[in-house]
């Protein structure tokens, strides 16, 4: 299967996880299990296989920015990098939802953070931690 075809599978799979997270108050346990474990694990298996297949054939490395950019010239490695984003971002999103549920933060407030994590992973992570800090401050006051 070509990297392009796998890309077309990985994207909707990750997206289904984000939909599950957004709708998670409906069936909290099942939907966070799906988005926080099942999909990230499937993406991790795909990532691992892609690295096993593509890593040794790729040029470049971790040593300098041009090296890292050259690494992503290889379609298999570039796809692996993309799947890495998809899997880890979703895992962080599920962690945010679970943390919010445990600490009593309203899901409606978490939703914008989820959108940010989905689009710009670390920025959304930052937003959620800020929301959490604000919420904990309010509880303490």
């Amino acid at each position: 299967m070509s990297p392009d075809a796998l890309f077309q599978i990985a994207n909707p799979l990750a997206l289904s996880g984000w939909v599950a997270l957004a709708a998670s108050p409906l069936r909290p346990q099942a939907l966070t299990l799906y988005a926080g474990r099942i999909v990230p694990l499937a993406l991790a298996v795909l990532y691992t296989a892609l690295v096993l297949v593509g890593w040794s054939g790729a040029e470049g490395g971790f040593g300098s920015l041009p090296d890292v950019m050259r690494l992503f010239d290889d379609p298999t490695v570039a796809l692996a990098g993309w799947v890495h984003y998809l899997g880890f971002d979703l895992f962080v999103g599920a962690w945010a939802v679970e943390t919010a549920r445990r600490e009593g933060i309203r899901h409606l407030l978490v939703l914008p953070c989820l959108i940010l994590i989905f689009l710009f992973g670390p920025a959304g992570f930052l937003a959620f931690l800020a929301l959490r800090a604000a919420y904990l401050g309010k509880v303490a006051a």
Partner: protein
Amino acid sequence: MTTLSLTAPSRFWTDAPVFTGLALFLTLSILPVALALQLDPRQWLGEAIWLKPLKFQIALVIYLITLAFFARFLPAGMADNPRWQLFTQAVAFAVLAEMAWIGGAAALGTGSHFNVSTPLWNAIYGLMGFFAAFLTSASFVMAVAIHRNAATGLEPALKLSLVLGLGLTLPLTLVVAFTMAAGTGHLVGTPVTEARLPLMGWSREVGDLRVAHFIATHALHFVPLVGWLVAGRLPDPAARGAVILAALAWVALTFATFAQALMGKPVI
């Protein structure tokens, strides 16, 4: 107690936690390798490059889970013996090192066994030969321990079959595997048509030393299977005789297929 009974799976964990855990870990690690097999166009010696790591994963899972099953017949308290625990941990390390080497070589697009292309690969190959012998020695150690255990609760013929099967695995495998390793590859002769047996991948046109290796290593399945079939069905001296006969037949089969391959003839 007349037969081996498959009791609760938790017995695997209490009798042989390291072997059981490692078997489970290797089983899960099959997932990415099986997917890599589907995705990777690379070949090595005429086969998909991830086929060999996959075969070793499956073979090692079968070996470890077999040892974990037989571990219930070890002397009472052996599972808590620190020396035995250290030994099983060392065996687990050797298994993981073999998989890292075979999988790593596949990832790098090169060979593992018989790879003497650089001093480093050559040195690793030698070390891995030692590790392979060491991990196989676990079967022999268990054979001795089960032999000494007067309270296995097993019928004599069945106990004898475990001891012989486990005990034969190491010497038979060492003879075949080290002869194979002393050469330049697992084939004796030069294949032209690349005709192979399905699944196992053994050559159907030249000698393939892997056949005898397979039979040697599966002594720990075959002889106990015969013991399980005859124990309680035949009167005792006859049952034990049948087990001894089966063990001798398995040794003969190992050496017959070994000689056949060394003469350059395919198994079928």
